[in-house]
């Protein structure tokens, strides 16, 4: 192709330029000017208020912060009560309060492991070998062989691939949940869950949907709702993890979760299950393995089981069990595991020992169940109160049948009952909650914990004392 000479090009352009009408030229010149103006003019900015240093100093001088903490009087009822009910000696089957030996219905010492001689001897051996503290987190020379032993023992006992231990019961589930569930994930949670779980939910920053306590229909409704949302936004659905968080035996209600139905929903809607078994571990099932054993459900159906070692095992700490890939993830991502000193070796060894006792003697679990039934039957006879919780649950709540509208008044009544029964030799306590912080505040109650070592005379005494205390308080 032949190219035209450049001169011709310019010439042609010039000619056409001359031929254009004047008004056109004027318009174009205006446009060019406008563009130049736009380029060089500053964009509009609202006038910024710049404070002078003097004004700033005035503001700083003026600012008065709120007091750091609210004023709590020296004679606050809870402080007074704590000092009044200060405990001497071990909180075993009997507990020493106000220089009186009371039958202990307050400590979650379900299997009577507190003051067990074999466990004590093991603890002594441990102090003589390891000292008291471990002086480091698990990662940095804080892993003693007793920790590994407890982990493998727990895994074996629960028929799981792997177990991980934490040094504090409260920190267990509240660290486990945020290790997996992150911002953008969805957690379906029972309204009745205890406070540690609520903190775990908060730490995860996931989207939390509460379903009514033990109501699987409500749960399914929420799941269906989400399924429809997923259809609209399949891209997001592909990366959103979902979890159901439940308790095995609810501390606040003394009842058991409907696990078979929940497992069914798990597979139907592809949600993972995290179950907290602090109060069912060592209690439910023929050998104390918890809710899965109670229902005869394969433990692999549950993605993660967490429990505290502070109740049936009567040590301090907690653990999670599950598949290896699930649990191992916590070893680098469980905040309370990585960044905390490990459990004092003596507590780990005590837990291993207690677990061994439970394994050798499943009769403890049966005995506990019998005692629970007996206590339940006895308490049911008290007039004016209702016993909340399943008959075989070791945690029971005694609530007023006709509560007044005033929560504080009801608590006062129950407080009086507890006080009287301590005077008469039965130690029990009103269940306490941080009323402003609880998501769904349970009604006021006296919480009873059953020990498997109680004999029938002691149980009868507990029932009589509580009955009398209630009658006395009601007749005031």
């Amino acid at each position, binding site marked *: 192709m032949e190219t035209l000479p450049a001169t011709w090009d310019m010439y042609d352009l010039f000619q056409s330029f001359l031929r254009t009408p004047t008004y056109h030229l004027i318009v174009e010149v205006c446009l060019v000017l406008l563009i130049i103006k736009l380029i060089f003019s500053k964009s509009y900015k609202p006038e910024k208020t710049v404070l002078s240093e003097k004004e700033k100093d005035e503001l700083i001088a003026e600012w008065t912060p709120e007091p750091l903490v609210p004023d*709590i009087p020296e004679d606050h009822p809870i402080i007074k009560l704590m000092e009044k009910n200060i405990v001497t000696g071990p909180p075993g089957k009997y507990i020493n309060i106000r220089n009186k030996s009371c039958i202990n219905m307050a400590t*979650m010492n379900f299997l009577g492991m507190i003051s067990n001689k074999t466990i004590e001897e093991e603890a002594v051996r441990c102090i003589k070998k390891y000292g008291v503290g471990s002086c480091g987190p698990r990662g940095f020379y804080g892993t003693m062989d007793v920790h590994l032993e407890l982990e493998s023992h727990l895994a074996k006992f629960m028929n799981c691939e792997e177990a991980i231990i934490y040094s504090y019961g409260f920190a267990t589930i509240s660290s486990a949940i945020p290790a997996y569930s992150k911002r953008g994930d969805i957690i379906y949670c029972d309204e009745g869950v205890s406070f540690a779980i609520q903190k775990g939910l908060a730490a995860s920053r996931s989207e939390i949907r509460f379903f009514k306590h033990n109501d699987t229909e409500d749960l399914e409704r929420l799941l269906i709702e989400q399924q429809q949302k997923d259809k609209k936004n399949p891209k997001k659905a592909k990366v959103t993890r979902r979890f159901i968080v439940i308790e095995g035996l609810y501390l606040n209600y003394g009842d058991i979760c409907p696990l078979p139905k929940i497992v069914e929903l798990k597979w139907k809607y592809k949600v993972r299950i995290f179950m907290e078994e602090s109060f069912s571990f060592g209690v439910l099932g023929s050998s104390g393995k918890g809710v899965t054993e109670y229902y005869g459900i394969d433990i692999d159906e549950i993605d993660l089981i967490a429990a505290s070692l502070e109740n049936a095992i009567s040590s301090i700490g907690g653990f999670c069990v599950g598949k290896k890939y699930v649990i191992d993830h916590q070893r680098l991502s469980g905040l309370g595991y990585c960044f905390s000193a490990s459990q004092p070796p*003596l507590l780990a060894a005590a837990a291993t020992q207690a677990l061994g006792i439970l394994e050798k003697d499943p009769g403890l679990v049966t005995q506990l169940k019998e005692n629970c039934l007996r206590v339940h039957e006895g308490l049911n006879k008290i007039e004016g109160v209702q016993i909340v919780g399943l008959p075989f649950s070791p945690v029971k709540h005694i609530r007023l049948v006709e509560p007044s509208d005033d929560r504080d008044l009801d608590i006062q009544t129950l407080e009086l009952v507890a006080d009287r029964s301590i005077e008469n030799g039965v130690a029990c306590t009103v269940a306490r909650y941080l009323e402003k912080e609880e998501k769904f505040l349970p009604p006021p109650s006296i919480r009873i914990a059953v020990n498997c070592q109680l004999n029938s005379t002691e149980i009868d005494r507990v029932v009589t004392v509580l009955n009398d205390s209630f009658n006395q308080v009601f007749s005031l």
Partner: protein
Amino acid sequence: MAETENRTFGVVSTGNWKDSFYESFEETPLLTAILTVMCYGILVLVGHIREYFRFLEKNRGHTEPKIKGFVPLLQSWESFYTRNVYRRIRDCWNRPVGSSAGAYIDVIECHSDDYNWSLELTSKQYHVMNFGSYNYLGFSERDGPCAKAAIQSLSDNSIAVSNSRQELGYTHIHRELETKIADFLGVEDAVTFPMGFATNSMNMPCLVGKGCLLLSDELNHASLVLGSRLTGATIRVFKHNNMTDLEKKLKSAITEGQPRTHRPWKKILIVVEGVYSMEGSVVRLPEILELKKKYKAYVYLDEAHSIGALGPHGRGVTDYFGINPKEIDIMMGTFTKSFGAAGGYLGGSKELIRHFRVNSHSSIYAATVPPPVARQIISVIDIIMGKDGTEEGMKRIHQLAWNTQYMRRKLQEMGFIVYGNKDSPVVPFIVFYPTKLAAISRKALEMGLGVVVVGFPATPVIEGRVRLCMSASHTREMLDRTLGILNQLGDELNLKYSRKSLPVFKEDNSLLNLKMTSGQP
């Protein structure tokens, strides 16, 4: 005599504290930084190739299986890093121990048949010098008065009390412990908890909430970060120990108020640590208190690594700077480290502690300190305060201070890049490469030295480090042996990166040498 002591152990109450406040963080050489990043790059690249051929592997129990319909449980990058970078050198952490965490420690050897996917314990044990545990005052002991007291409490009390404080879990031993610790700290009252981590994470929400501002040091511990997050307050982070940055943020916070609404903040809480466990730096407390007064903020001081380990009487950073502890609003600390026990405390005014007793999450929902642990703490406090009638406590405090200065000085002389304050018992030195981390950790163990190595993600990518924790139970002979090992490894692995001239500070080496030749036990 008093004056000599003051000079030796870095009390800075007399005169200007800045004169003897020395901290150093030598910059990373550019070439090393580039090579370190490349080192990680290669690890990641190889990792990707491995992932591609993962289907060839026989044992796949440790990787997440695909379950149809389920979204993968683990985040991909996180678990990729664990599988391909951490796994290769995971024997450097979580080493099982078969003894107390004293001056020497028995590390049980681990063996792997499947490239570190799983580690099996062998019967072989390494008896090594322990420079990894936080046993600052050497109270992690198997015998002696503390262990005896702990054993006694097992029969007097119980192994544990699982009730919460408000539900009949408060015993005489707790009352005694809390009076003791308040007396030791020099505050009006104190409250204790069985886990140090939970002391922060469960109690910070009681202090601030929505409409409050938290100013947090960027290197604060995970428990403080979690606690802050649970408060619901606005969190702003200031540069590590940088008072100019803190003041700037305080000033703008008060003058501008809350974002959008411009309402004034309800309260402002400055959260700092006494000694930072990864950097070995000491908080600039006098300056923080100046700012606190000027801007009417509150101060939360976490003394996990400084209580017992710093100051002429072992009472932490306030003691170190000669500041009245009552000037700090919330004194927090743990019993895990210097006390050889477990748990944590909060100290402060009577009103503050009453608030915690009534409203803390832990007072209502969680167990109290186990009696044997409480007993151990009580007897350690008695020893530190000299109430047992011996000089043992003071001796240990002096020994730790001396050990710290000696170790830091010698490492600097050898040419290591040592981070942190000259008086901080946490002694990190930088080795940069992840490969060198593993090498030094393994070799040191074989040569009889147990050290902690820390790399990404616990530190910035280019600042992998070895951390030595000093202890009063280390003897001069042990220190020299350790220095010998590190010197050899430093040459072998080329770890002596420092290009800086030796620091000069007030209580100089003349004193150290003097002490070294004479008074040293």
